[in-house]
């Protein structure tokens, strides 16, 4: 999945490198608590935080894999899955060349992008109508 | 002038000018001293000039017990400041690289945290040195404009170095440029002020030891 980020050098990956791994996990914990208390969702951009090679993997590995997985085909693939901690989702967007272009941790019951979008539903109806050749009116 | 241009100037022409003035000044000053010459002693010797002169260069580093007791503040602050200053100066990796580039010799560096700690100690000690200079009645009496100027010019590289290390206040190139410029000012005034004691104290101690040693006294 993340071959792009696998270390090329024998760098001792671990939290002591940038010291950002643990604080980030705690941030997720706080967000989950808030979500439970108030229903407020949050999104963390993994690319906005300096991480050493291997550290992103370390976060991903810690969060683990849960029950739900989805693969989207939207201008290149996107991958969404729930971690072993319910309510914590990993959203990874790839480009056509399967390179990660953005990656988020979402704390919510279901990431918005997973849902069918109103505009697309409208288009879908139109398309279905055209397909069936039925006049709406 | 952008900060990078300033940094380039400080690393290039600024450093050249400072080095020329510093090296030429120090060499001229030392020759100026040595070439004055000293008459050979015609009295029958009781001890050796050379060996005691060399000995005193080393031993004069340690104060005698009574003097230490009587002037402990001056001695402790002075020693702490000097020693703590030499650690960042000679054991901070970027500084070692500088020396390596100029004189071709290099040695192991100390971790940033250690260097930083000594820099802080040195800064505190320098402030103590200043306070002592302004409050100790003898030092206050002896202090002239040059003493204060030299204190300031020694303090600036330390404090700017500390700011550059921690990137406080300005952008990194500006901090680095200011640090280098402060060092260059120090180098330029060096040969013409009491900063020369860095070199001449070895001469002075040698003469003292030699004069004493000739008479059979370990000074």
């Amino acid at each position, binding site marked *: 999945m993340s071959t792009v980020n696998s270390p090329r050098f*024998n*760098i001792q990956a671990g939290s002591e490198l940038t010291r950002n791994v643990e604080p980030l996990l705690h941030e997720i914990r706080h967000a989950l608590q808030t979500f439970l208390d108030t229903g407020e969702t949050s999104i963390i951009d993994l*690319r906005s935080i300096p991480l050493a090679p291997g550290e992103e993997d370390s976060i991903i590995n810690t969060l683990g894999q849960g029950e739900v997985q989805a693969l989207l085909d939207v201008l290149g693939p996107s991958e969404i899955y729930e971690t072993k901690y319910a309510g914590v989702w990993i959203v990874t967007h790839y*480009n056509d060349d399967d390179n990660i272009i953005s990656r988020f941790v979402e704390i919510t019951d279901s990431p918005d992008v997973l849902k069918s979008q109103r505009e697309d539903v409208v288009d879908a109806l139109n398309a279905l109508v055209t397909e069936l050749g039925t006049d709406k009116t | 002038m952008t900060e990078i*241009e300033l940094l380039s100037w400080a690393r290039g022409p600024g450093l050249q000018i400072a080095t020329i003035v510093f090296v030429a000044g120090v*060499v001229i000053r030392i020759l100026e001293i040595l070439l004055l010459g000293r008459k050979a002693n015609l009295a029958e010797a009781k001890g050796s000039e050379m060996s005691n002169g060399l000995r005193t260069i080393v031993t004069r580093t340690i104060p005698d017990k009574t003097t230490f007791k009587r002037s402990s503040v001056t001695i402790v602050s002075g020693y702490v400041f000097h020693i703590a200053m030499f650690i960042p100066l000679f054991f901070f990796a970027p500084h070692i690289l500088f020396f390596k580039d*100029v004189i071709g010799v290099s040695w192991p560096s100390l971790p940033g945290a250690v260097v930083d700690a000594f820099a802080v100690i040195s800064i505190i000690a320098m402030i103590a040195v200043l306070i002592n200079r302004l409050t100790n009645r003898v030092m206050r009496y002896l202090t002239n404009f040059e003493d204060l100027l030299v204190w300031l010019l020694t303090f600036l590289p330390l404090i700017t170095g500390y700011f550059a290390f921690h990137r406080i206040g300005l952008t990194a190139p500006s901090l680095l440029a200011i640090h280098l410029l402060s060092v260059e000012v120090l180098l330029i005034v060096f040969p013409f002020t009491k900063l020369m004691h860095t070199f001449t104290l070895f001469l002075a101690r040698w003469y003292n030891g030699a004069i004493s040693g000739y008479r059979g006294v370990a000074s």
Partner: protein
Amino acid sequence: MTKDLNLKNGSLTEISPEKGTLGETLRKQGVSRRSFMKFCATTASMMALPPAMIPSIAKALENARRPSVIWLSFQECTGCTESLTRAHTSTVESLIFDSISLDYHHTLQAAAGHGAELAREVAMEENYGNYLLVVDGSIPLDNPGYSTIAGISNLDMLNEAAKGAAAIIAVGTCATYGGIPHANPNPTGAVSVKDIIKDKPIINVPGCPPIPVVITGVLAHFLTFGSLPELDHIGRPKAFYGQSIHDRCYRRPFYDKGQFAETFDDEGAKKGWCLFKLGCKGPTTYNACATTKWNNGTSFPIESGHPCIGCSEPDFWDGGGFYKALSMPTDNLTQTLKYAAAGAVAAGVTVGVMNRSKKNTSNKIHVKTTLEDLEK
């Protein structure tokens, strides 16, 4: 007329004479709402904006008007355009370019000769006061003949194009700070855009080349907010140039611990230790390489084992050599040291001789002191 030119133009964008909103354009292209959301999320990430802003970005982008963009290339190597077109290979970033009307770019456009120049003139006229002017390359002030396009000197073309521009984006270190053409001894008298244009907002996107997402990020910001991003004291968007490479470098802990690679193939290099001693300019270089990375987020120079050369800073070419550590003097001090010392020995001996003759004089004029001489 406009339509014809656009056809000849054959730019990266869909030819769209009416220039509707971005939302309309995308829908026409059959881009789904989900894709658009992905695009917005990625754009936010790219611009280093907090994810909470994604909905407002989506709204703004949807209603954004497609601006006319004129791209002028002066003394440059086309590396900036190459960097940008690499960015273009990824689907999402391409939307940014789909959302502008690139009316003139002499490397990318299909049109040639008088037609190409006419396209520029027409775009300038039609969008006077509203178009974005992108410049890569430096401008020679020495002899205008060093770099001309269609017989027009770079200086004249820049001055003319700048007049009607809403803003100017200087792309690459040449356009922002003079770059390699400006490097000592600067034979063409190369200068940057901001050295010439004083009365327009200029965004500097330095780098040799700049990070592609930084270029697209700045465009996205302009599209999203219709304004320029916040700039630092030398005109760079703070979102990308706010922190130094050193500050965001994953090798920073090694620097702090004093663990350095001494050569490119020693144990330290293999262990990924800090490259400061190999000349890394990370501490004085402000850019986003360490977080956005290159080649679709693959890595950045330091991650590949090479020190930062400081390409996004002014005069990086004249910094005393890429492999000379920052704390080293840029010139040969050893030589200076030797000459200064040699000269000083001569001067010192002269001073010494003067001192001695002065003392000899005092010895000569000294008359033996007797008892009578002790009182005035």
